């Protein structure tokens, strides 16, 4: 078999091994670890970039490698790298655990990479669990006053239950179709949704993915985990695992020959509820990360919107928005972890006077938040508009209307953050020093967010090609 097909995964396996060895060292030297991790992260980017154009199937067709999966793998590698860049101060994780932190970060990345290109139930399940378990461990890795373990245990419980439910659903699917290959199951959708067992199976199976995507009603872990986990971990959860989940959902529905009317309707309702709920609850949050958690719930609703169009345009929009979301969300988290150098949870007021303490960070914060709110000229805006467009093309008028209104609501709390950072001032807070690389990263991110917002053509074309490989 062609090694390149499995290249990224193999590479990260190697990386994981390295970190494992590092974690065995008696006396920890976080600096060195960080150097190595960064190097490996860059290498991972290179490898995934190299493997971008691979095509093929592995492991008895259980594992498909195509442009779609490779793009997402690249995105994941990017997220991995991003998280490493802001990991130079893992203040809240004890030094002897740094290596393990990297280790589990790598393993979860591997899990997600496998997730995006697995097309068989068992493979999906295993890779899903792989990614999840590493995260379960990462969350309570934080040195904290109890909320970390609480977040960890909640994450674990909800995750375990939903994955169990999913497994149960998968078993029904298996029973109903006698196969575990998506390629064989999904064409059978029509008669599947017409049989109770099929419906049940499908529904329960979706639970797992919804859990990853933190769609209502599987969103309960998000706020607690976002707040409880270390900033870097939260960043990874908020960026990488979202992307992976979107990819998986796309695979699921893209192969489908069309679900029943009522099924889609259910999805529509779920999407509406989660975007509305997320936005409304986010309004009253004090903790910045928690606020972002709710915004992520709302965004899950938006993703769903693109997915339920069941049309190419919708998938393109979803892919575009997933990539966009990865970048813009990271921009914001980057600001968080830069401002909260000591790794504490950032209250919104603590952003006070950021324009004075670090103009650049405040600028990227504004850009990132406006992008999340879908204000032009940013990829957030373009992506959202593409989503709406595709939804409207399918005649989901009310969905679009509600989505647009939700945009307004969301703007309110984003503006509150901007208000705090831009207008209020608190002399007690000193300036935030940022290193030159971070500076460059900032500029790069701003450039990406704005640039691809105004000229989205390249990305859209890419997404189009990717979606074509899936269909």
């Amino acid at each position, binding site marked *: 078999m062609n090694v390149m097909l499995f290249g990224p995964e193999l590479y990260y396996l190697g990386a994981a091994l390295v970190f494992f060895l590092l974690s065995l060292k008696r006396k920890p030297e976080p600096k060195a670890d960080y150097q190595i991790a960064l190097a490996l992260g860059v290498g991972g980017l290179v490898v995934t970039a190299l493997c971008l154009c691979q095509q093929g199937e592995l492991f008895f067709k259980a594992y498909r490698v195509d442009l779609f999966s490779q793009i997402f793998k690249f995105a994941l590698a990017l997220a991995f790298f991003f998280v490493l860049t802001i990991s130079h101060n893992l203040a809240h994780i004890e030094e002897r655990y740094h290596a393990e932190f990297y280790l589990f970060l790598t393993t979860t990345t591997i899990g997600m990479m496998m997730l995006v290109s697995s097309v068989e139930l068992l493979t999906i399940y295993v890779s899903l669990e792989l990614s999840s*378990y590493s995260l379960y461990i990462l969350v309570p890795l934080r040195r904290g006053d109890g909320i970390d373990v609480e977040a960890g245990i909640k994450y*674990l419980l909800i995750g*375990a239950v939903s994955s169990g439910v999913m497994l*149960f659903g998968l078993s029904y699917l298996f029973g109903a179709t006698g196969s575990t290959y998506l390629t064989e199951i999904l064409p059978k959708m029509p008669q599947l949704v017409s049989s109770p067992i099929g419906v049940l199976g499908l529904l329960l199976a979706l639970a797992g993915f919804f859990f990853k995507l933190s769609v209502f009603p599987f969103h309960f872990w998000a706020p607690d985990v976002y707040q409880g986990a270390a900033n870097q971990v939260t960043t990874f959860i908020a960026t990488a695992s979202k992307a992976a989940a979107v990819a998986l959902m796309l695979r699921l529905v893209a192969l489908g020959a069309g679900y029943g009317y009522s099924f889609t309707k259910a999805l529509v309702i779920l999407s509406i509820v989660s975007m509305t709920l997320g936005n409304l609850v986010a309004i009253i949050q004090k903790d910045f990360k928690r606020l972002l958690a709710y915004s992520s719930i709302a965004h899950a609703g938006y993703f769903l919107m693109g997915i339920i169009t069941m049309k190419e345009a919708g998938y393109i929009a979803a892919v575009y928005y997933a990539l966009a979301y990865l970048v813009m969300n990271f921009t914001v988290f980057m600001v968080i972890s830069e401002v909260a150098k000591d790794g504490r949870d950032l209250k919104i007021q603590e952003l006070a006077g950021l324009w004075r303490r670090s103009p650049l960070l405040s600028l990227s914060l504004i850009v990132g938040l406006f992008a999340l709110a879908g204000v032009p000229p940013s990829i957030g805006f373009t992506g959202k508009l593409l989503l709406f467009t595709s939804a409207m093309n399918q005649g989901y008028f009310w969905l679009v209307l509600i989505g647009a209104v939700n945009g307004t609501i969301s703007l309110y709390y984003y503006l509150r953050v901007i208000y705090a950072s831009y207008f209020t001032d608190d002399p007690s807070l000193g300036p935030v020093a940022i290193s030159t690389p971070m500076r460059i990263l900032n500029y790069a991110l701003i450039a990406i967010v704005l640039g691809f917002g105004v000229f989205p053509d390249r990305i859209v074309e890419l997404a189009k090609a990717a979606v074509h490989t899936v269909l």
Partner: protein
Amino acid sequence: MLVFNQLETYLYLALLLFAIGLYGVLARRSLIAILISVELILNAASINFMAFNRFLAPHPAVGQVITLFIMAVAAAEAAIALSIIVAVYRKLKSINIEHATELRG
């Protein structure tokens, strides 16, 4: 035909197990108990797989393989869960879920 030579029997059994597991997850307060209930859910799933495999799968091996995988994964899950529970115990001096109610709103 014997009652335990029918698919339905096993399906109902699995369903029962699933229900029990779900109930346990929702009702029990001790983390360990909850963990056990989760395992029950998994087992329900594997019973399903076996049953379907036995009765109407074209390829006789698939279900068994899956079940094996499930066992392994469940083991891993248990390990992680237990380790976290230990951590919880260290921090909160209790493994009662009711004491882990810091984050809300």
